[in-house]
């Protein structure tokens, strides 16, 4: 008999419930009607890729929430994607724990600032945060931008602000981040590939 794993679980669970209930005098049909579907069956599955090492294992992320506008979705389960030719459904102990990273209490949820000399974080709005950062960047760039070097060669560079970029970010966001940094004239650019 050719059966998927999930079908197998469903059949065997139903069989177990059915047989024990029959022994107690109930009919199997009634018992089957009582069997609850797996929670995963009502979850939405999205294919993803493990964020940790460069094997980049395929992942299936299960979330609750039906996708409706105001339904808050939530990851309830992550497993390996058997249709990834490299990982073939496997995850290592790092990847297997990824749900706890997504849902970690250590997640940063709001922009905040630590003022000079302060001992605490203060929550601020995105607009305030980005306006203040942009002002800092512009002030530093305007004060220290080099158009020419001592030999008179056009160099158009900004050396006094640096940028470390993320090796778990997507190709697209890396490309855009670099484009912005170079566009501003930054030369201090690096990523985890270095270390």
């Amino acid at each position, binding site marked *: 008999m050719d059966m998927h794993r999930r079908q197998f679980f469903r059949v065997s669970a139903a069989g177990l419930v059915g047989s024990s209930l029959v022994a107690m005098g109930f009919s199997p049909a009634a018992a089957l009607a009582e069997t609850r579907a797996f929670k995963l069956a009502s979850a939405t599955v999205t*294919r*993803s890729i493990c*964020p*940790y*090492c460069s*094997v*980049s294992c395929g992942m299936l992320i299960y979330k609750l929430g039906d996708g409706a506008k105001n339904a808050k979705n*939530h*990851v309830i389960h992550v497993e390996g994607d058997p*249709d990834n030719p490299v990982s073939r459904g*496997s*995850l*290592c*102990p790092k*990847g297997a*724990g*990824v*749900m*706890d990273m997504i849902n970690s209490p*250590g*997640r*940063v*949820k709001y*922009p905040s600032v*630590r*003022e*000079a000399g302060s001992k605490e974080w203060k929550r601020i709005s*995105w607009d305030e945060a*980005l*306006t203040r950062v*942009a002002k*800092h960047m512009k002030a*530093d760039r*305007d004060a220290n*931008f080099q158009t020419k*070097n001592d030999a008179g060669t*056009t*160099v*158009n*560079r900004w*050396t*006094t*602000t*640096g*940028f*470390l*970029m993320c*090796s*778990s970010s*997507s*190709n697209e*966001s*890396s*490309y855009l981040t670099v484009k912005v940094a170079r566009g501003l004239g930054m030369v*201090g650019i*690096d*990523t*985890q*590939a*270095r270390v």
Partner: protein
Amino acid sequence: MTNSWTDIKNADLIIVMGGNAAEAHPVGFKWVVEAMQKRKARLISVDPRFNRTSALADLYAPIRNGTDIAFLGGVINWLLSNDKIHHDYVKFNTDATFLTKPGFDLKDGIFSGYDAAKRKYDKSTWGYQMGEDGYVKVDETLQDPLCVYQQLKKHYSRYTPEMVSKICGTPQDKFLKICEMLGEMSAPDKTSTICYALGWTQHTVGSQNIRTMAMIQLLLGNMGRPGGGVNALRGHSNVQGVTDMNAYAEVFSGYLSAPTDNDDTYEKYLKRCTPKPMRPNQFNYWSNFPRFFNSLMKSYYGKAATPESNFCYDWVPKLAGGFDVLHMFELMHQGKMNGFLAQGFNPLATVPNKNKLSAALSKLKYLVIIDPLESETGDFWQNYGEFNDVKPEAIQTEVFRLPSTCFAEEEGSLTNSSRVAIWKERAVDPPGEAKTDSEIMALLFMKLRAMYAKDGGAFPDAVLNLAWDYAQPLEPSASELLREINGKALADVLAPADPANPGAPRAVLVKAGQQVPGFAMLRDDGSTACGNWLYSGCWSEAGNLTARRGLDDPSGLGVFQHFGFAWPANRRILYNRASADKDGKPWAPNKKYEYWNGKAWTGPDVPDMRPNAAPEENVGSFIMNPEGVARLHAIGMAEGPFPEHYEPFETPIGVNPLHPDNPLAISNPAARVFKGDLEAFGKKEEFPYSATTYRLTEHFHTWTKHARLNAITQPEAFVEISEELAKEKGLKHGDRVKVSSNRGHIITKAVVTKRIKPFAVNGQQVHLVGIPFHWGFKGQTKNGYIANTLTPFVGDANSQTPESKAFLVNIEKV
């Protein structure tokens, strides 16, 4: 990786060295196990620790950390002395026959042209002799003492098994057994592969570690062939892609060399970057440099980039010396940097010498942390008792913390170690107000651009003209960015004029507005734009090829041509023309891959060769090199064209046994050492034990400590020491110990293990202290010291990757 994860299954021998794939890349390691089970491949593990890769290996050999070149140089010597090389392959695919210059020399561990004051080489005596025809002179007989083959033989003749054992502490019988096993792989019907990781890169001789192994693979005839190659098992899921997208100072997208102050004109820059072929008939792929660079400038500066404006060459920032992370922190430490942004990067815990980093960050005016998780760097100003003993009131840095999405909350592509870009969908909404990195950058840039438009400021042209044609300028989508990366035709791309009929109308290859099908269609006249030539073809008119999920593997060799998109050109094994002999025939029937069928190159992969280049045209397999062959003698390297063993900057033996009388040749003579850091190196008298950092299978860097499940499995920091060292120091398993280097100390627990044994080196015993580096003062694990408090602030002479894998410490009970 030159090959791929799935290709490892085609190997007859796998050597894991400078890495520990079974623990750090467990799922990728299954392809090693597959090769062992299905084709009886053998596995060799060479490591300072008997790790879990060693536990599965047919042969394990211990090696003192930081001595890999001595070991591998010994292998080269053995292969050449015992004539266990793949002769036809070496002659056809390497520079073995090329003649080197008569002035080239190595004396007392220093190559010709050294300037001790600058710690740099004048390379004019390195490299090949050029003939009057403009091509390199060769000796097909390999007898000329100046030919690379003879020079190589001479250079490594000093690396005898006795010397290897003296430097590395590897027992001679084990070393010789490994030489024999590797030697068998010189047969045309055998291939072996190497899997390495940061155990090779994090040394002041890191690049040369890898080069030495690449040379072995060339001598054995293993490059460009199934089951062969040099395979870097890389770190993060997209460390490959982010490197390709030029998120580091020295290059632009697709490894286009960035301009420096010496490139004062556009013409000079193009001339420097566009090489001429060094042998007749060579492909010399970098001759296309102007097409790639000009197309990138079209993506960056749009309409402003024209032939008349030199494609805005002057707008591009010229590199002012090195700007790697060590150099940036050095400038910061000197007070020469005012601002710093860190996106998903935790340098305080990742970069060496935490105390120096902390002092440097304290001098900044502003610091911006963009991260999904709270990091030690973001909280560097906060007092965490002994783990981060700082005074917040004394630190005047303004710190902004911006919440970004994690992988599951954004769509886009990641490029794995096999160079395969794979698309993922957004799975779930981000928590709170977190935004994607792209959105954060767009919002920030739009604010800056508006300020420059309104108030002006320093050089506003580049800021105001940066091409930003996104449907939603405040939130560019991953799909339109990947299309930009792929490139498109801005005007009709025409076929070259037919020489026989120059007046005839030229065929339209790509219509204006269409996505280009690959980098061959890129032009240097401004008619194409392309954000990264290497990825060209990933989103053609056929759609998003990174989102393909095909599992067909018709050859059975693990070549999944319809799964994602491998750069370049969807090629799964680089330099695969070398999988066939000079005449285009497979080297052996069981190793058939790409071959010449009489009319074209064919096989399961995309050929790494012009498809109609008949073997008699003599186009070499290594098309990216102007030589057309791979280099055994490479002048691009900072510390010498042939790798030489140098001790780590903190050496436990204080001498280079190859050059005992030359203090200049103890450690890498060309490595950059900042003022003040030389003094911060420890000496063996005070810090007698050799230390290395590494990863555990349950944790990923300082990231997974935020995940409860991982925190449960490995909750607390520790160091590993041998039973012998424990006895010597009166330590027991579980004792609290203080481990100190010349830069600081950590207090942690001792794990006493049989996995580590002292090395017998140069007539003395050297103990190893193993330091997993996953802990810090944020997250779900027990708070602890940052291991990188101990590591030295010095990098590889070529890549500036810090020497975290070999340094000196002391250990005491507390």
